[in-house]
């Protein structure tokens, strides 16, 4: 119950703290939903200048909230300054001028789920409709918190306190808090990934059944429809099956893994086909604008990550994963990032030491680590593919949030391993306090930037 109260109050607090349109790409995601309700269509063409085609009231409202011609990247609501220059007739325009949207390449599953929330405030001004629609993400955040608790209960079966602490860290992780408070299909991906990891750890504990394999496949399929990188959760399944299946003989093991893989693949293929069907029926085109051949190869890609003392590595995996809020206007203090890196390294060292001993935790560590590494590597390869076509670096730290649950499992196992036995009792409360402080500092930083 406390988990639900914390997830709900935190979700509502973040939703009210981040000003409208200040969620990353929020105007595009909202325009998608508004297009479904007001124009009865989904967008078919992505475009970097898509905002030119959004309902005029969205541009006006962004302007009222401080986002002007200079873009949202260093904007704050104006408070007391002169208001918008939009006329009353302009602000009442709810219709897009063309089915163009920067989010057009996404399937409509998240956006259709948001429609009832939009309809709750359909007669209200656009800012109120936006706030109402955010509630969909908040509820998905609550759902993902409950599912995460179920997953952590299985991962830390011997200690409910550790499971509870892991759940609190999941709920209060700052970037997770943002993405489940603003309009963004990440919220649905996070919830579906949480359900996936719950069933994943259930299989680790109790062995995998055919029914569970199908369910895992179904969750991967839905995650793919929420956001394409959700598909990469599928890559963890053969490893899971290989680790959990009864090993009578090599032949039986291979046949068993193949049978379970085939069973889980069926719903994934179904989801891929459904996504393709929607794409063909809607006549969608690709967002990636091809660049000149030969300009963007693997070497250039690696250079982009290695430049400025690995700045992009740090940006994506540390700053962007934990705390670049809004349109990257708000960042956590540098010293906090250093602390996060330090604690992560400690956790990974602890995991490494767990692997060196024949412990019962080994399969949990191996499966979590392989799950994180394989899925993260595939997400990275997806970016390389996009880079080779268009030269775009599309990843943000939040692109990896679907892996937050196994990351937390690894960190807590690692910290637990390195702590002296007598001090082990302190891990759970220290984790809760750390997570609470991190979340409050994030809120304080946002409040100062947006409302200062």
């Amino acid at each position: 119950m406390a988990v639900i109260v914390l997830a709900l109050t935190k979700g509502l607090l973040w939703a009210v703290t981040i000003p409208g349109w200040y969620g990353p790409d929020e105007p595009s995601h909202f325009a998608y939903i508004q297009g479904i309700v007001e124009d009865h269509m989904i967008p078919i063409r992505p475009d970097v200048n898509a905002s030119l085609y959004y309902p005029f009231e969205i541009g006006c409202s962004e302007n009222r909230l401080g986002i002007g011609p200079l873009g949202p990247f260093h904007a704050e609501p104006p408070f007391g300054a002169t208001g918008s220059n939009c006329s009353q007739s302009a602000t009442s325009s709810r219709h897009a001028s063309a089915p163009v949207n920067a989010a057009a390449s996404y399937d409509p599953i998240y956006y259709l789920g948001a429609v009832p929330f939009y309809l709750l405030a359909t007669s209200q001004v656009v800012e109120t409709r936006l706030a109402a629609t955010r509630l969909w993400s908040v509820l998905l955040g609550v759902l993902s918190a409950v599912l995460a608790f179920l997953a952590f209960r299985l991962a830390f079966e011997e200690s409910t306190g550790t499971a509870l602490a892991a759940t609190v860290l999941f709920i209060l992780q700052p970037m997770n808090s943002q993405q489940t408070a603003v309009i963004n299909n990440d919220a649905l991906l996070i919830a579906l990934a949480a359900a996936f990891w719950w069933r994943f750890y259930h299989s680790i504990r109790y062995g995998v059944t055919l029914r569970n394999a199908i369910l895992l496949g179904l969750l991967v399929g839905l995650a793919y429809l929420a956001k394409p990188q959700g598909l990469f959760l599928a890559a963890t399944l053969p490893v899971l099956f290989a680790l959990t299946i009864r090993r009578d003989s090599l032949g039986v093991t291979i046949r068993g893994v193949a049978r379970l893989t085939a069973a889980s693949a069926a719903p994934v293929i179904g989801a891929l086909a459904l996504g393709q069907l929607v794409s063909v029926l809607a006549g969608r085109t690709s967002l990636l604008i091809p660049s000149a051949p030969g300009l963007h190869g693997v070497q250039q890609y690696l250079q982009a990550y290695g430049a400025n003392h690995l700045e992009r590595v740090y940006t994506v995996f540390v700053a962007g994963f934990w705390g670049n809020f809004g349109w990257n206007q708000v960042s956590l203090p540098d010293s906090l990032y250093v602390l996060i890196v330090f604690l992560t390294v400690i956790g990974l060292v602890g995991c490494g030491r767990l692997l060196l001993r024949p412990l019962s935790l080994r399969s949990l560590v191996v499966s979590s680590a392989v799950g994180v590494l394989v899925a993260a590597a595939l997400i990275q390869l997806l970016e390389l593919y996009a880079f080779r076509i268009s030269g775009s670096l599309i990843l943000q730290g939040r692109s990896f949030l679907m892996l937050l649950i196994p990351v937390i499992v690894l960190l807590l196992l690692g910290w637990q391993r390195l702590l002296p036995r007598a001090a082990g009792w302190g891990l759970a409360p220290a984790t809760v306090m750390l997570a609470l402080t991190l979340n409050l500092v994030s809120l304080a930083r946002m409040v100062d930037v947006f409302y200062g």
Partner: protein
Amino acid sequence: MAPILLTPVSADRGRNEIDLLSIHDLPLTSGAVVTQPVELQNPDPYQIDLPYRWEGQHPARLQVAISGSDGALLSEEMAAFNNTTSPDWLEPAGDGSVWQHLGAKIQPLRVPPGAANEIILRLTRVDREPGTLVLFASNKMPATAGQPAFSIDSRLTMVERPAEVLEFESEYGKPRPAWQKVPTYFSRLQSLAPPWLPFPVPELLLLLVVATGLGLYILTLRPI
């Protein structure tokens, strides 16, 4: 949390002054001059925050002259711009934020009391240190036919570079510890809150998050 609550903050900041989309270096060699008109957005201006980068051994020195829009000199003083390089332990790599990526720090320039409406900021580099002091500028976006009025870039440009705007941020009101500004933060947040979260619901939400977090902390202290 304590350092955040004790950090001095001003009562208000200028809006729509910095453009991160077209930000670029503005090198300032010895003897160079930059003149930027500043439209004050509020009464009681306190200081102008000027981002810069300087890697020289000794501080770079600028003569900072501030005059009214009628040309009357309001203040003139020397400002020392210290080295902006951060220690490696604090920034092992850039965090991706624009200012850190640019290696910039912020230099506060005090606005004299009595300044109102519009002031002219004139910066002259007077030191003879080797190396280039870097300020930052952005491009003024040209208005196009049929462009909605709200999306026109209305910023004033530099006298020496009529297509560019010096990057700065104005601050209003004497800085005080952030905790003293909490009521202002809440009232501003409340002004944007949706109708179903009237006062004091956002405040109660914050209390509830803290209380639930502390409750869970106490719960995990006991073996369960």
